[in-house]
């Protein structure tokens, strides 16, 4: 069994990541075309929501990915923090903007769906609110990476914040649910939601698969970019040092 550390070598990472990306992009295209076809043309409209239910096929996988990405950040942060695995830090860092984008997509599509359903772009529904807070958690995490120049220090601090945030997610979720039930008794908004019809499941899972392969491709590509940028920065600072020593001598 290959140890975790074999993947810590950026050269080895590059060797399998580069050929994997085109396959992932191809899979994304296939799944997305199939999923959108089912979602837009070959699935029933909801008996209550009409065609607006089709927003769900874009919205629900985005919300899943939002949570999945944050969990992935927390797990890679723990791996990077405990075993000082360099690629885990890079993975955590590069997952954040993609995850934040999925979170934004979930909020945005939820809001579009909310306009015809609730008559308002935004309602302080428990789920919407917790996703919004998740978005703020993403922003804080990315802010740490942006403000610290020293990458190893940024990695450690961002990892600590990601783990603290991850521990807090269930507490935040619970408190928002509680708050919501206090403020609006007998929630009119999707109380449990209609149990989903089986004909809606294939497009949903196809879309979820497309999101997943897209995420994998985007993550691998941005990890490669980050590794290359770091190598460039190293070469650059090395050249400056030799130039400086030449001037001195």
């Amino acid at each position: 069994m290959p140890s975790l550390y074999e993947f810590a070598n950026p050269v080895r990472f590059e060797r399998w990541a580069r050929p994997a990306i085109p396959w992932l992009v191809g899979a994304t295209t296939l799944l997305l075309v199939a999923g959108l076809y089912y979602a837009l043309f070959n699935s029933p409209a909801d008996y209550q929501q009409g065609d607006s239910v089709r927003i769900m096929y874009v919205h629900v996988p985005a919300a899943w990915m939002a949570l999945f990405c944050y969990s992935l950040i927390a797990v890679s942060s723990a791996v990077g923090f405990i075993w000082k695995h360099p690629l885990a830090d890079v993975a955590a860092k590069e997952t954040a903007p993609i995850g934040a984008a999925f979170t934004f997509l979930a909020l945005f599509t939820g809001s579009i769906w909310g306009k015809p359903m609730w008559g308002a772009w935004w309602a302080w529904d428990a789920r919407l609110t917790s996703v919004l807070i998740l978005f703020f958690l993403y922003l804080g995490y990315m802010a740490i990476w942006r403000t610290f120049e020293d990458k190893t220090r940024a990695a450690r601090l961002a990892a600590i914040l990601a783990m603290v945030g991850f521990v807090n997610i269930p507490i935040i979720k619970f408190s928002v649910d509680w708050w919501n039930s206090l403020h609006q008794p007998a929630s009119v908004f999707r109380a449990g939601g209609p149990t989903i019809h089986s004909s809606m499941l294939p497009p949903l899972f196809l879309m979820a698969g497309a999101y997943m392969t897209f995420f994998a491709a985007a993550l691998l590509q941005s990890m490669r970019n980050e590794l290359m940028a770091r190598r460039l920065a190293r070469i650059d600072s090395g050249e400056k040092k030799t130039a400086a020593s030449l001037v001195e001598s």
Partner: protein
Amino acid sequence: MRAFQAIIARDLRLAFRAGGGAPQAVAFFAVIGVLFALAVGPDLSLISKIAAPVIWTGALLATQISLDQIYRADREDGSLDVIIATSDELMVTAAAKAVAHWLSTGLPLIIATPVLAILLNLDRDAYVPLLLSLLIGTPGLSLIGSFAAALTVALPRASLLISIIVSPLYIPILIFGAGAAAAGAAGDPQYGANLSLLGAATLFAAAFAPIASAAALRSNQD
């Protein structure tokens, strides 16, 4: 334990003497209350309805604005390095810093609350629940906040970043705190549940924030 007390005593002395920030947090708290009242307008019944939430938000913001001071001065004059190098258990020290922060900002805020509550025309029945919820909740704010301060101690101007980091983590305490204040004022049976959950959130912060702070302080050493 003696180091724990010594750090609290030292931080309190620094906070309340000239140049310390403790009185400013209370002044900021009062200003928020006044600004809210001016923005809402002179409708007394509306003001009294939002008084407790405004005071809770004000306490949260005043705490947030003063977090930057917890470790900043110690780092600038080098005493933070000494503290880290000499303390047996850095998390105990981090806990002491959070306690000192609560004593120098949280407690004065609670003492100032009745005055602000009079200005905001708070109902007479709402005083005790509001003060009790603040008493249970604000230590949690200081604990979680001290973690954010430890995380950003190496940055020259961190108060905005601290606010971004800490706000999502404050949400449970704000919800249960303001919820307890509202339920207690209305005689709602959920008052006790809210207070217990608020206490649980603070205790949870007390258990984990010092550990996270210690890890952050170590990672921030040069």
